């Protein structure tokens, strides 16, 4: 029973994990991205469409990354080069994503594909309790583990990561050191968006292997909130995403057990839970444990240097 619940937790948490990681990369460069919901949908549709057309799940994942990378570039162009309002641009990206996927996904509604299969990791899958949940999963979940470590390593143990953090923290100082601020910001937004797209593809390639209009159902917004919970760290994002996955898994479990509580009330739980988590992590942030990039949300203009 607990094993099944843990397994469902990991699977429900993985799309949010990819999305949160992508959003963290965006915000580390100082750019808020409220287009996560739209990017996930774009990833979900292009991933599904590519797999449906080619039969290759790998191509589906690549297509999801590329499509979300391109869509994220619009946000990057507006926020970085054109110094536009990041909140409005992100909302526009979400609206655009919802609309364009509904338009181009029309023909794919009701089609099915063979989703990713499970592959047990030798030895690790034998671990009691957690073995099956974490190490008898599909390739995308293993990739998400790898990505968590890779992003941590990149941010704290590579020169480029240090540069990226500097750009988000204090672009003026970064510029003075000769770091190309706009290039870093642009690439961070575009690549981060690409990972968000893979999160969407997890939904359409694994979780429910089909395309449904607006299938993300607010997961992108939950990811935006989890970035604050994760204090912009990839390991804490893992924890946050699984916490959310756990609430979803339990909610589904309750539904399956046929409780007398209304489905609609149960479905509210993840959203209410996210708001509570957001409040707690905001309070903690103010106690001085802040990892928030210093220049988050502000455009950088060299002419404004003081």
């Amino acid at each position, binding site marked *: 029973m607990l094993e099944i619940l843990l397994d469902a937790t990991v699977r429900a948490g993985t799309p949010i994990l990819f999305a949160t990681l992508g959003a963290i990369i965006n915000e580390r460069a100082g750019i808020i991205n409220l287009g996560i919901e739209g990017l996930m949908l774009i990833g979900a549709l292009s991933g599904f469409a590519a797999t449906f057309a080619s039969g290759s799940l790998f191509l589906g994942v690549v297509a999801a990354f590329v499509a979300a990378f391109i869509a994220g570039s619009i946000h990057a162009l507006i926020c970085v080069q*054109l110094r536009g309002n990041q909140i409005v641009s992100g909302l526009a990206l979400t609206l655009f994503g919802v*609309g364009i996927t509904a338009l181009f996904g029309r023909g794919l509604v009701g089609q099915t594909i063979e989703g990713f299969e499970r592959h047990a990791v030798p030895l690790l899958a034998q671990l009691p309790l957690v073995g099956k949940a974490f190490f008898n999963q599909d390739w995308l979940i293993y990739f998400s583990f790898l990505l968590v470590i890779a992003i941590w390593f990149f941010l704290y143990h590579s020169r480029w990561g240090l540069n990226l953090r500097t750009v988000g923290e204090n672009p003026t100082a970064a510029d003075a050191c000769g770091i190309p601020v706009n290039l870093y910001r642009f690439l961070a937004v575009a690549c981060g968006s690409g990972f968000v797209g893979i999160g969407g593809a997890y939904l359409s390639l694994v979780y429910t292997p089909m395309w449904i209009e607006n299938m993300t159902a607010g997961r992108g917004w*939950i990811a*935006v909130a989890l970035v604050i919970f994760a204090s912009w760290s990839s390991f804490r994002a893992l924890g946050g995403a699984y916490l959310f996955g756990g609430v979803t898994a339990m909610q589904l479990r309750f539904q399956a057990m046929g409780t007398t509580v*209304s489905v609609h009330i149960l479905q*509210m739980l993840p959203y209410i839970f996210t708001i509570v988590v957001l409040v707690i992590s905001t309070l903690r942030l103010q106690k001085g444990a802040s990892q928030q990039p210093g220049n988050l949300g502000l455009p950088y203009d060299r002419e404004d240097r003081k």
Partner: protein
Amino acid sequence: MILRIEKREQGSALFRSLTTTASLLCALLFAGFLLFFAGVDPAAAYLEILKESLGSSYGLSETLVKATPLIITGLAVSIAFRMQIWNIGAEGQIYMGACGATGVALFSGLDSPLMLPAMFAAAFIAGGLWAAVAGLLRALWQVNEVIVTLLMNYIAILLTNYLIFGPWKNPDGYNFPLTAQFSDAARLTEYFNTRLHSGFFLALFCALAVYLLMERTIWGFQVKAIGSNPAAARYAGMKTGLAIFLVLALSGAIAGVAGFSEVAGLQHRLQHGISPGYGYTAIIIAWLARRSALGVVIVSLLMGILLVGGDSLQLSWQLPVAFAYAFQGLILFFLLASDFFINFRLRRVKETDDA
């Protein structure tokens, strides 16, 4: 020779409206490409939008019907904008307002002169309380109001579904998720045998009230002052936290009124999808109107044309309703890009100048 970006002095009003118009046209053009790739003839589609929304008296009345909730929610979002507060939750507040009004209509037992004012008040309070949650969290602890208001949209819609699938379901409704129809006392007046109802005049009245509140009262001045420079406003002794709370609550309350107008004027019952995203369109309207109540009315009428036309495209070309969102996203993208050309200018400089 290279290009250099320079700050520009505030451009003239003419230049601003020209760039806004140009960005709308670019959005139309780009959306045309999308339609083309989706197998729809864009020229025919645009012609159909104009014909359906403006080409007949019925079309015109439908445009006003669609503009009604847009004006009210656009105003709601725009007063929060004044203070640099983002109310992305107008969608949920519409639903809560509709629930409040429906509760009174179905269960209060009131009659004619009292019924509609009571429904109005219930919607105002329900929408206001819903947004006040985000307002309280923001004022007390600086919790990000964008995320809270947005997540509460999902909760509001689920709560509405709970009511219409559960306790409020019409017992004689063949198990459809709808409430019973409202009595005549709980309906707004309709005109000229169309669906146009007095909610439209309520919307215009709201525009006037918001204009007076923001431009002619001390409170409105404070809101604008806090929005443009919170530190200075605090130094001048203004209570910023309280103002943030009140602005969000008022914004939600106004959006709740749109819910009242929709159920009392149009649907005459509570059902699924009473708002097909008016709360999100309202954000664009508030942004496009650039802080003016009159602007909100004008832009809402334009959006009304788009929505009426969009509904007919949905029937004739099987376009999904959500396509309107893609179009709205494009409008915002181009507007943001045009802001750049309003605030900056590109100037050619000789390379020697740069050093």
